[in-house]
């Protein structure tokens, strides 16, 4: 009890959340790591540890799923950066009073389950759906649907993760002080130079968070490939799900999860470790 009194108000306030995350986040991850060393197809945590699951993964074709997930996530991030930067810039510097309303419009879809929204794309793109049906009735032309192709998966991912890029970018761009831009212009910098040497470096925290968040979420994407891709690609998260559900091989699923967590964890920790959150969130 003495210990608790010594914590001070900050430590005391942090305690409930810390205990909760210990039980709900750290412990499950430790359980996953532990499970990945259990012999294949066991459901108990008490067996003799082995590396059999990792050996099985390196001999299998799981790496294809890994590469697809990483590749699609990277493409998603690049496309989203190009799509969102002008919008974020506009929200901070161009739209003025309308920015609030636009922000609200960008927020609403976040709260609707992603599978419902992806299903909207299915209705839009399917044969005799909104797009192709309209073309057919107007021009009598019939086109092949892009649904159930790899491009459709990419479209779905860009669509679902758009707000996760847009909001951090907006926060980042709002960190650029007007004085820095004005000074650069006064000194004769061109628009492009200001963009490259003032705006990009000063909005870097937002850019980093946006890239990281969209990449991490996109690497774990699963619904996009199922709903819009017609199983054209099996992403790594689906491999993990299959191991846990259909094939009832939890240790294998756990080992795949550990590998994915390693990729994600290294990226996140490397980028976030020295990040000053107070500056990013607390500035007025």
């Amino acid at each position, binding site marked *: 009890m003495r210990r608790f009194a010594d914590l001070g*108000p900050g*430590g005391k*306030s942090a305690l409930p959340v810390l205990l909760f995350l210990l039980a709900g986040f750290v412990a499950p991850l430790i359980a996953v790591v532990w499970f990945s060393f259990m012999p294949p197809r066991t459901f108990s945590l008490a067996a003799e540890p082995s590396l059999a699951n990792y050996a099985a993964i390196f001999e299998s074709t799981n790496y294809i799923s890994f590469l697809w997930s990483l590749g699609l996530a990277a493409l998603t991030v690049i496309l989203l950066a190009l799509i969102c930067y002008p919008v974020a810039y506009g929200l901070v510097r161009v739209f003025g009073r309308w920015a609030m309303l636009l922000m609200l419009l960008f927020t609403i879809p976040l709260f609707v389950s992603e599978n*419902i929204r992806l299903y909207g794309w299915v209705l839009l793109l399917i044969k005799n759906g909104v797009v192709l049906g309209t073309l057919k009735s107007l021009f009598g032309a019939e086109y092949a649907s892009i649904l159930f192709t790899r491009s459709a998966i990419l479209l779905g991912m860009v669509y679902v993760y758009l707000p996760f890029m847009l909001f951090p970018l907006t926060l980042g761009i709002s960190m650029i002080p007007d004085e820095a831009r004005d000074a650069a212009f006064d000194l004769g910098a061109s628009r492009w130079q200001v963009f490259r040497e003032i705006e990009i470096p000063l909005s870097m925290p937002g850019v980093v968070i946006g890239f990281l968040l969209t990449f991490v979420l996109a690497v774990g994407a699963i619904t996009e490939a199922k709903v819009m891709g017609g199983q054209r690609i099996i992403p790594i998260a689906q491999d993990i799900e299959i191991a846990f559900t259909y094939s009832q091989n939890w240790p294998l699923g756990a080992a795949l999860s550990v590998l994915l*967590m390693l990729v994600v964890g290294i990226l996140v920790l490397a980028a976030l470790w020295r990040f000053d959150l107070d500056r990013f969130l607390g500035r007025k």
Partner: protein
Amino acid sequence: METKASHLRHALITVWTLAVVLFLYLPTIAITLASFTASRYFQFPIAEFGLEWWRKTFNSIEIRQLLSTSVTIALCVTVIAVSLAFFGAMAFARYDWRGRSFYQKLILLPIFFPQSVLGLALLLWFNALGLQLSWMTAVFAHLVWIVPVVTLVISIQVYSFDPALEEAAFDLGATRWQVLTQVTLPVLFPGLFSGALFAFLLSWGNFPLSLYTTGSDTTVPEYLYAKMVAGYTPGVPVLGTVSTIGAAILLVGGYGLILASRRARQSVSE
């Protein structure tokens, strides 16, 4: 300076932004249209409109059961998440303490984590503990992701909180409880309210965490997913539309309230 070029640039940015908004809402429009079709199968242009599927959906006992499960989970998540995150946000933004920087990063980790993998990890964890899966384990699973989000949302408000207010109240002889209920909570109310809104809506719309942790209970997003994978039924667009419009109303109404109360407070202080 080069005003003509910057006018053009601003016009381009505006057009582009509106295009992105349209892109974001296209699927919603398609779903809403589909929900008003009279026929069993979706075909565009829609031959005949009707409300039949809306009536059928709302008269179904199964659907009512789903809605009540989803609302129950979301309400429990909201109450627990806001209580935990209020203290979490004070530790995040208000107090200076030794482990703070580490704590701030730890809070972010569940957000920067693929949710499907988190769901499966929790499934494994519940199993290792011998817990029976139900809507209650789903509440716990949602919280792992939603508590950090709500902590960040409330923290943004806490950053602009002036600690001198609390000190002044203490100097005037207020007890700790009085300071909390009459100073801290009212000042932070907009942040707590936004946090509650986020918690409810994120839980309501969550699919990847629910999928592995609800056991035999089913939430609305899970049901919709099962239906859309199994084949088309017009009940899917109806529930999808309800879900979207519900979220929009809560959000717009909620922010309207915050703005109105801020305006009222400003006119009082003037």
